[in-house]
C-alpha cells in the first residue's frame, strides 16, 4: 500500500523535519515497515552526504561494532584521498552517518569510492538534500535522527509496506538519484517494466543498490534532466515510458513535482495555497500540518504538477 507525502514552502523555510514527521505518522497504518525522509535544508557550499554502514536488522556478531568503526575510518580516509575536505562527520546511529565536506570534483567517482567500503551505501549526496530512512514508524525515526527542528523549504517522505523487496534500509524510500546531486523520489505503486529500465540504465553506467522497483524512477528522471530536459518534460515522458501503477513525487534543489499514472490507480490528495503546497496519499496527513479548515482535491490521471520553492 505505502503512503507518500510532500510539502513545499513558497514563502521561506519552515520546520520541515517535524512537519514531515507529523504527515508520515498520521499515515502509519499505510506502511509500518520503514519510514523515510528527503529534507532540503538551506543550500550550502559544502556537500552533505548521508551514508549507512550496515542494516539495523542484520545479525550482529562480536566484531560488529569494531568493524563499523573501522569502515567509518576507512570512509574518512578515502574522502581525504579523493580530495574532499571533511568538515564534520556525525553518527546518528552506529550504522548511519552524516558527513559534510568540501569537494569540487565529479560526484560519481566519490560516491563509488565510498560505496566500495564493505556494507556502505550512500543514501544521499548534494548541497542541500539529506535522506534519512530507517525501520519502524516516522516518530521513532525522527526521534533517533533528531529531525525535529530541521529547517528547510521542501521535503518528501514515505511510509513503506514492503511488497516487492526486503524490509531493510536499502529497500526503504526515498531514493536518491545516484549519482546526481540533490534529486530524490518517493513512489506508491508497482512498476511492471522495472527490469527493462534497470538493464537500460545499468548499461548507461548507473548502479542500483536494492531490488526495489522505485529506485529506477529517481535515476530515470535525473538522467533525463542531465540530458537537458526540464523536470516537467521528463516527468511527462515517464507517463508513457514507465508501465504499471504509480503516484510518485520527485524533489530537486528547488522544485517538487508529482505525477499520476494513466489509470489514476493510486491515491493523491492535494492542498495548494500561496504560502505552501502539501500533498499526500491521505487527507489526514495534510491536516496534520495545517490547523485551519482546508479545501483539497484529487489530481486526475496522467497529471504532472511541479511547484518551485
Amino acid at each position: 500500500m505505502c503512503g507518500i507525502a510532500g510539502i513545499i514552502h513558497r514563502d521561506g523555510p519552515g520546520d520541515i523535519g517535524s512537519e514531515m514527521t507529523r504527515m508520515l505518522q498520521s499515515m502509519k497504518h499505510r506502511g509500518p515497515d520503514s519510514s523515510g525522509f528527503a529534507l532540503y535544508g538551506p543550500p550550502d557550499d559544502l556537500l552533505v552526504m548521508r551514508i549507512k554502514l550496515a542494516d539495523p536488522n542484520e545479525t550482529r556478531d562480536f566484531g560488529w561494532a569494531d568493524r563499523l568503526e573501522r569502515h567509518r575510518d576507512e570512509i574518512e580516509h578515502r574522502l581525504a584521498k579523493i580530495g574532499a575536505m571533511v568538515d564534520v562527520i556525525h553518527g546518528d546511529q552506529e550504522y548511519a552517518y552524516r558527513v559534510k565536506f568540501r569537494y569540487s570534483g565529479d560526484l560519481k567517482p566519490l560516491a563509488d569510492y565510498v560505496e566500495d567500503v564493505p556494507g556502505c551505501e550512500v543514501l544521499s549526496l548534494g548541497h542541500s538534500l539529506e535522506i534519512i530512512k530507517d525501520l519502524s514508524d516516522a516518530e521513532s525515526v525522527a526521534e533517533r535522527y533528531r529531525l525535529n527542528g530541521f529547517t528547510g523549504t521542501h521535503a518528501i517522505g514515505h511510509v513503506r509496506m514492503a511488497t516487492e523487496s526486503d524490509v531493510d534500509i536499502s529497500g526503504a524510500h526515498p531514493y536518491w538519484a545516484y549519482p546526481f546531486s540533490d534529486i530524490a523520489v518517493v513512489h506508491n505503486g508497482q512498476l511492471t517494466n522495472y527490469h527493462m529500465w534497470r538493464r537500460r540504465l545499468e548499461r548507461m553506467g548507473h548502479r542500483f543498490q536494492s531490488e526495489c522497483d522505485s529506485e529506477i524512477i529517481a535515476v530515470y528522471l535525473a538522467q533525463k534532466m542531465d540530458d537537458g530536459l526540464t523536470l516537467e518534460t521528463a516527468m511527462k515522458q515517464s507517463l508513457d515510458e514507465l508501465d504499471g501503477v504509480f503516484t510518485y513525487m520527485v524533489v530537486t534543489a528547488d522544485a517538487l513535482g508529482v505525477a499520476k499514472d494513466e489509470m489514476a490507480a493510486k491515491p493523491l490528495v492535494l492542498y495548494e495555497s500561496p504560502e505552501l503546497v502539501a500533498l499526500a496519499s491521505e487527507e489526514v496527513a495534510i491536516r496534520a500540518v495545517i490547523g485551519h479548515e482546508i479545501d483539497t482535491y484529487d489530481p486526475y490521471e496522467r497529471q504532472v504538477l511541479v511547484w518551485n520553492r
Partner: protein
Amino acid sequence: MKISYDARGLAEPNATAPGNAVIEGEGSERKAVFDAADLTTRQINLELRRLVYNEQITEVTMLNPGAKHSLAVGILARCRITIDGSLGYFGCGLIDGPEIRVTGRVGWSVAENMMSGVLLIEKNAGSLTAAALRGGDVVVRGDVGARTGIDQKGGTILVGGDAGMMTGFMMQRGRQIICGNVGGGLGDSMYDGAIYVGGKVASLGIDCVEAELTVDDDEFLARKLRIYGMEPNASFRKFVCGQKLWNYDNLEPAERKLVL
C-alpha cells in the same frame, strides 16, 4: 505532538461511546451535536450509533471529522446527519436510510454499497465514489475522481463538476448525471443503466454508445436537478450499453463440454 490516531480501530477492541454529544430540545424535536476532533474512528461511529439507535434522535451534527476514514458507516435508520467538515476514505458506506450532508470533501470510496437515503457532498469527492451503489441519491457538488459508480447496481449519482476516467465502469443499473466534463473510457463495459453528461466526453469506453434523449429522460433530469438546486447551463447527452458484450446465453467452451 504524539499522534495516536488509528485508522483501523484495531487498537481499541473494547471502545465505548464517549457520550460527549450535547442534546437539545424535547421529544421528537431533539437535536444532538458532538465534536469528533479528539475521538477515534471507532468512538465517533459508536457515538453516532448511540444517538441514532439508543437515543432515537433524528437530527445529529458531527463537528471536526478531520478527514478520518470510515466515518458514519452502516447507519440503518431514517435520520438526518450533518457532517461539518471533510471525510477520509470509505465514508458513509453501507448506509440504509439516512440523509447525510457533508459540508467539506470526501476521499475515495464514499457511499460504497449504499442502499437508500441521500448523501449530499458540498465539495469534491475522490475516486470510486458510490462504488456498488444499490439505491438512493449520491450528490457531489464539486468534482469527482476516477471510476465513479463502478459496479453501480441502482440509485442515482449526481455530479455538479467534472468526473475522471472510467466513469460508470461496469455499471449494471441505475443512473448518473454528470454536469461537467468526463474523462476517457466513459461507461467502459457497462451492462445497463444510463449516464447523462452535460459537458465534453474525452472518449467512450468499450461497448458504451450514445442514445437519444427521450421525454422521460428530460423529465427525470429536470426533476433530479431541481431537488438539489442544481442548474447546469448544459444540454445533456445520454450514454448507454451497446449490448455488444451481452453474451449471457452463450456457454463458455468448458461449460459446453459439460452439457454435451
